């Protein structure tokens, strides 16, 4: 099996190298791939993606460590390779991450509770949101920044400086005593608790395990980080990250995250590859059936003859 780990930043490179080493220890081939070395091609005959002249479709599995700024580029790669290579997230699920409101609504529609959220992209619309929510509010920007707003002046000042088409979400703020971050890898859920600046291992209640696994399964990802906020005797999904802080989880919990990750990547890739082969065989059989039907070898036309 040949695995590629695509990264977009310095932190991405470090994590990609650690994951690769762990995959190699499992006896499989693995290569870190710098996104900046990737060349995309589209032409009459098809689309393709290469890194240093190696076709990315030749990999059995491609794992993405995507970062906000490069989401569209990552999406283009996934779109090109998706029918040929097992990717760590499918094309249509990755699109949800283009927008925080989109992923929140997706989770909400699957009964993963969210509070009332507003999304807007212009100062003129922001005033309506402020009227509805009333101060204080918390604004979240596409880069993940969350800014609590207590005064109308700060709100106006902040909103007037936003670039057009920046989708901002607004909610009522919560003041949780602690936050819970989970790292989901396959069926494994590893959790940390963040209280103020200190982060420690967390004895995970079943609700968090179930919700974490549900998020990962709905998104069909190899892995993800789910951030929870405690709210009214329950936990709300606040954020989902496709590039978790693996090193932090390993450091805090002492679990061998990269080993777990490596065996999960290999087993998921094998499992999905089998599904892909099955799907492609059944598509070919259907194609042949349609062709036989068309030329009258099988079906009603044959009976007529």
């Amino acid at each position, binding site marked *: 099996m040949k695995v590629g780990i695509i990264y977009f930043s310095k932190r991405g490179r470090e994590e990609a190298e650690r994951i690769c080493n762990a995959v190699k220890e499992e006896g499989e081939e693995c290569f870190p791939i710098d*996104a*900046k*070395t*990737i*060349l*995309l*091609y*589209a*032409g*009459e*005959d*098809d*689309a393709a993606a290469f890194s240093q002249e190696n076709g990315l479709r030749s990999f059995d599995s491609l794992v993405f460590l995507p970062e906000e700024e*490069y989401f*569209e*580029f990552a*999406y*283009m790669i996934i*779109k*090109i390779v998706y029918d040929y290579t097992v990717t760590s997230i499918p094309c249509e699920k990755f*699109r949800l991450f*283009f*927008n925080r*409101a*989109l992923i*929140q*609504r997706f989770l*909400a*529609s699957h*009964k993963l*509770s*969210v*509070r*009332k*959220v*507003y*999304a*807007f*992209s*212009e100062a*003129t*619309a922001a005033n*309506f*949101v402020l009227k*509805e929510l009333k101060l204080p509010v918390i604004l979240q920007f596409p880069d993940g920044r969350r800014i609590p707003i207590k005064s109308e002046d700060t709100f106006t000042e902040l909103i007037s400086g936003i670039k*057009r*088409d*920046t*989708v901002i979400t607004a909610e009522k703020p919560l003041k949780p005593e602690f936050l819970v971050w989970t790292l989901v890898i396959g069926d494994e859920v590893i959790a940390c608790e963040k209280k103020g600046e200190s982060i420690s291992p967390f004895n995970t209640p079943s609700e968090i395990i179930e919700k974490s696994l549900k998020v990962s399964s709905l998104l069909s990802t190899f892995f993800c980080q789910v951030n929870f906020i405690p709210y009214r005797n329950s936990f709300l999904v606040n954020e989902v990250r496709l590039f978790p802080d693996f090193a932090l989880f390993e450091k805090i919990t002492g679990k061998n995250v990269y080993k777990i990750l490596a065996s999960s990547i290999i087993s998921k890739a094998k499992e999905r590859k089998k599904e892909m082969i099955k799907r492609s065989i059944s598509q070919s059989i259907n194609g042949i059936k349609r062709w036989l039907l068309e030329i009258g070898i099988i079906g009603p036309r044959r009976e007529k003859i």
Partner: protein
Amino acid sequence: MALLGPEERRYSELRLLKEAKKVFETVTYFPISKLVLEFDEKEVKILYRGKNILEYDALLPRIPKSYMKFGYLLLCFAREQKIPIPISPESVLYTHNKFLTLIALAQANVPIPKTYLSLKRATLEKILENIKYPVVLKLLYGCAGKGVMFADSKQSAISIMDMLEAFKQPVFVEEFIKNPGEDIRAFVIGEELVACMKRKAKKGERRANIAAGGVGEKYEAGDEERDLALRAAKALGMKVAAVDILPGKKKYVIEVNVYPGLKGIENATGINVARKIVEKVYELATSV
């Protein structure tokens, strides 16, 4: 019918409004900039001054490049609520990112010029060495002919790309298809090519876009052009699309527009394109 568009209503929006009023009982124009999304576990709303536009029977979006992300979000929410829309939300993302358009077209076997994209110019070095000059350099998010440049040598291509890289403007390289500064704009509605014009670049200009000074004249599309336009629109999930085709012995689709202007095509062909768009939206709304 709810018509979503930019704050400033121009020719196309005004024409669509005028024609829509003849077909629909109620037609309202909503500036995208003033819309707010509201949702929780139970419901989704797209609000304009407190009014939920998802209560309309149909939605006709005119989403300019400057509202691509928010527009995509709006259409995703409208689709979730099963409101008839003549374009898929993805087509907004795809057509504003020109390379994504080309990937979708290539995957649907629609002929396009050979095109290359990378995050870093250095990765394109080998391509720039071997490609035939001149080449076309295009901004990933350009529109109306803006952001299309021509380089006659590797050196000038590198200079342009380095400058754009410094401004963090992604650019891609496209093979140059020899052409006398003409292209064909084919307007697809549903399964039909309803209007077609040939656009000719003004003297000294290679781009034929009307916005770049090009002139349009009525054009009778052949079977191949018709087939290409329909396949291109279908590949992007669009029931209303303006497809740009490079004419010649071998024909290529170079662009698909989700936010096409109507003035040029209506003036050149005398066809009431706005009416046909509105009728398509009505058909979608009544067939639900």
